[in-house]
């Protein structure tokens, strides 16, 4: 049957919802407010989703992408994060998904695919490139080893207990404040930070508000860190996650001046310890923060220390392993390869769709998935 590809339209909503419910199952995709926030940013004059429809107008396949601005060298360019793609079984067999993927990779100068699953990863690797040796790193700082061990599977509890977690480092006298919004002078800090990386999401104040204030379902807090003069030196975005043994901090963003970055991480660690947090973690692509994190006692999870025993998503019992991959395609990513260096990029778990609510989150919030 002949299929036509077009942008998702408002009139498609009920059918789109039924399609998602049938082929994705109960999920955030069944909530219109959620989809409008992520896939209707207005930058494309409508939905950032493409559908394949048959001659009866029935949806046979969908691909969704998140459109943000990216800092790429000296330019600001559209970056499309490839998100969910799903097709009816028949169309899947006929390779219709390839059309949808190829459309995105041709339409936008930069296309990103983060932590793909076993189905999407080979396609992302064919259409995009990775940075040799670079994956999403997860740095972990355990503040209460005894409680943290309670989050691990029984056979993995010693993974946390056997490590000397040391001290929180020197916070350099930074003063900290919790905020519901990014501070008014944040863009000055971002402008200084963005000069240090070649390729990143354009994390200006408007992006931060869209991503961490306006996004539905999950709440985030901003931790500002200032020196005595009052100058903003660092800003973190943190998601507080409750667990049966206490609160966990997922650090989504960290923007800091290089001269106070280690102290910024130390400030976060001290705040977390003082508040009785079980552990905090930060997932990042790009090496610029590595040494600063280590100075504050954060440890990179790897195959040797097996710190991934501490669950990523904390949806009990959630011990899922991610692929932790990152691939970028699109004409500009192909044309200008300067982004392919470990210290040239800066992406976090806050990018793409990696921090969306799980089924556990939705149920806990009383939201019908």
């Amino acid at each position, binding site marked *: 049957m002949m299929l036509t590809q077009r942008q998702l339209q408002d009139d498609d909503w009920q059918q789109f919802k039924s399609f998602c419910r049938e082929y994705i199952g109960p999920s955030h995709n069944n909530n219109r407010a959620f989809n409008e926030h992520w896939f209707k940013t207005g930058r494309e004059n409508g939905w950032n989703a493409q559908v394949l429809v048959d001659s009866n107008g029935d949806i046979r396949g969908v691909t969704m992408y998140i459109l943000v601005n990216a800092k790429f060298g000296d330019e600001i360019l559209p970056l499309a994060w490839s998100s969910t793609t799903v097709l009816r079984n028949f169309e*899947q067999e006929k*390779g219709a998904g390839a059309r949808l*993927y190829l459309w995105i990779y041709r339409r936008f100068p930069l296309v990103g695919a983060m932590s793909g699953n076993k189905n999407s990863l080979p396609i992302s690797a*064919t259409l995009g490139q990775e940075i040799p040796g670079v994956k999403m790193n997860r740095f972990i700082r355990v503040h209460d080893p005894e409680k943290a061990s309670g989050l691990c599977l029984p056979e993995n509890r010693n993974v946390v207990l056997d490590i000397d977690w040391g001290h929180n480092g020197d916070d350099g006298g930074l003063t900290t404040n919790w905020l519901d919004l990014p501070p008014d002078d944040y863009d000055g800090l971002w402008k200084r930070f963005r000069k240090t990386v070649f390729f990143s999401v354009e994390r200006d104040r408007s992006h931060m508000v869209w991503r961490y204030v306006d996004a539905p379902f999950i709440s985030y807090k901003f931790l500002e860190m200032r020196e005595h003069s009052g100058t903003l030196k660092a800003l973190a975005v943190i998601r507080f996650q409750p667990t049966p043994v206490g609160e966990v901090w997922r650090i989504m963003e960290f923007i800091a001046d290089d001269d106070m970055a280690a102290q910024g991480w130390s400030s976060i660690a001290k705040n977390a310890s003082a508040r009785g947090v079980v552990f905090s973690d930060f997932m990042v692509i790009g090496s610029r923060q590595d040494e600063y994190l280590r100075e504050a006692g954060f440890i990179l999870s790897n195959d040797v220390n097996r710190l991934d025993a501490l669950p990523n998503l904390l949806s009990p019992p959630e011990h899922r392993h991610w692929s932790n991959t990152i691939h970028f395609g699109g004409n500009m990513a192909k044309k200008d390869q300067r982004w392919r260096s470990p210290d040239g990029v800066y992406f976090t778990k806050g990018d793409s769709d990696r921090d969306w609510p799980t089924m556990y989150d939705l149920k806990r919030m009383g939201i019908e998935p």
Partner: protein
Amino acid sequence: MQTNRDDIHLALREFLEEHSPGSTATLSDSDSLFDNGILDSLGIVALVVFIEDHFGIILEQEDLGEESLSSLSAIANTVEIKLKNGKSAK
């Protein structure tokens, strides 16, 4: 690039054999690549990247329909037309 129809068929066959080893020995030019399980979404993506790199052409979205990719002959036709029309990508 000077490429005749035989060259196109040969290059496509070599790609398909590499992508799906053992699948092309008895495959006729008109056999369905989908029904024979030779191409899926990943296969199409890889095929498109191969065609564009190898022949120096750009396949447009309208070239990626089920019919255009249904058989070795259909794909070769698309490539041949693109080459004749001089739609060079490089």
